């Protein structure tokens, strides 16, 4: 059981890393925008936006997958249009797996982002504005760097969640080796086989290692970012 990983397992790991990274890159701007909206802007129907953002957290993941299939599948409104206009198919492709993982990770990323945005001292932003910085620069030079610890935490939490996503992935993206068979899906597939337990256990160990690594990197990044800022 402690042999090095087989090509099948390496493929699952590489695919999982790629899918999770793509999911994070895609969802970060969305999460930032939503976090900003919820932290700073007062508007009617706020609670609706909050509820929507939190939905993937409480819905059964397979239901989220089903919704994705109905909307982004080739016979769905958006999926059909994507195929007609750009020749792009998401369902049962790694891009679809990234979409599923991104949606499931979204609420976990928005929350710490929003908290850290709320925690940024408004006076500092006002000081920057009074010094001539237009709103975009205030955001990039003051708000974002000060919110950085929360952003790092959110991104890593989101990455771990995206890496471990199963229910929505297997419903919307299936279990295609090299394309959508991420580590959790591969573990499930291995367990379906009579002789698959050792492979499943090896992959499970890999998952644990990735999670621990994510936690370490999060801690390290946090320390670097807050270096010199003893008041934070």
């Amino acid at each position, binding site marked *: 059981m402690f042999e090095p990983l087989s090509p099948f397992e390496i*493929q699952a790991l*590489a*695919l999982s*890393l*790629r899918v999770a*990274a*793509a999911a*994070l*890159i895609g969802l970060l701007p969305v999460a930032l925008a939503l976090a900003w909206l919820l932290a700073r802007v007062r508007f009617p129907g706020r609670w609706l936006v909050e509820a929507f953002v939190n939905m993937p957290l409480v819905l059964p993941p397979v239901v989220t997958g089903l919704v994705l*299939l109905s909307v982004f*599948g*080739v*016979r769905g409104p958006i*999926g059909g249009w994507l*195929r007609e206009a750009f020749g792009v*198919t998401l*369902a*049962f*492709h790694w891009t679809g797996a990234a979409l599923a993982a991104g949606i499931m990770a979204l609420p976990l990323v928005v929350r710490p982002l929003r908290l850290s945005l709320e925690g940024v001292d408004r006076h500092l932003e006002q000081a920057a504005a009074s010094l001539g910085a237009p709103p975009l*620069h205030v955001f*990039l*030079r003051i708000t*974002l*760097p000060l919110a950085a610890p929360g952003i790092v935490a959110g991104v890593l939490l989101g990455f771990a969640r995206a890496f471990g996503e199963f229910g929505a992935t297997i419903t919307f993206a*299936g*279990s*295609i*080796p*090299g*394309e959508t068979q991420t580590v959790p899906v591969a573990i499930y597939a291995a*367990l*379906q*086989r*009579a*002789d*698959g337990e050792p492979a499943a256990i090896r992959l499970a160990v890999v998952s644990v290692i990735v999670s621990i690594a994510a936690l370490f990197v999060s801690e390290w990044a946090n320390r670097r970012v807050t270096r010199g800022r003893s008041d934070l």
Partner: protein
Amino acid sequence: MKAAAGLTRRGSLIVLFALAVAACSSRQETASPVTVFAAASLTDALGAIAQDYERETGRPIRLSFAASGAVARQVEAGAPADVVILADHPWMDRLQTVGAIRADSRRDLLGNRLVIVAASDATIDGDPLVWLQHTGGRLAVGDPDSVPAGAYAREWLTGRGVWGDLRPLLVMGGDVRAVLAFVARGEAQLGVVYASDARSTQAVRIVLEPPADQQPKIVYPAALTAAASPEAARFLDHLRSPAAAARFRQFGFETLD
């Protein structure tokens, strides 16, 4: 603007890192692969044939196995398959009706037989099905709605008049290999699988094999999908070659001429 520039530099570094991870994990491909979606019972046989083919021609073959029902639904939903091999006609008919496969490429490729298996070290007295009902064990079958092996099992057992009695004892598997795994792990005392599956693992042995006149007609159709490449057609032809046929027989399938 040093502070802003520093920030943008850090930001782009992160993006570059992520893209590098993504790029590194891309498969290095010299030729674009032929993607085959096939019924789960073909796992070992197709795996071996694909390996042979890759070695001879250098063209990579990508294999994805699931129950025929799952395969059909995925192909219908746009999954990137070039060649489809299923374990019964109804699922292939469905794909043909929606135009997902090229009707002129469809051929019946293989046959198979149903068997009942038990764990290798199990002790069974007399007729396995009667024994099962007396000891109150469980019978693993594929889900008849999506697994042809389950549909064939239902057909056979209904023909023997015992399906109704066995219903309370059933455990459904998502594909025929899952059924095999249930028996191998002892979660079900008996399971209905193909003869080819029974040969794939030492953990189970055949305890009942219906004679030919009681076997359901099991046939594996194969076809190209609507968007398949010429390379895919070549692989499909290869599957009907004598070399491939020998391999299939080696793994317990029946070849059709």
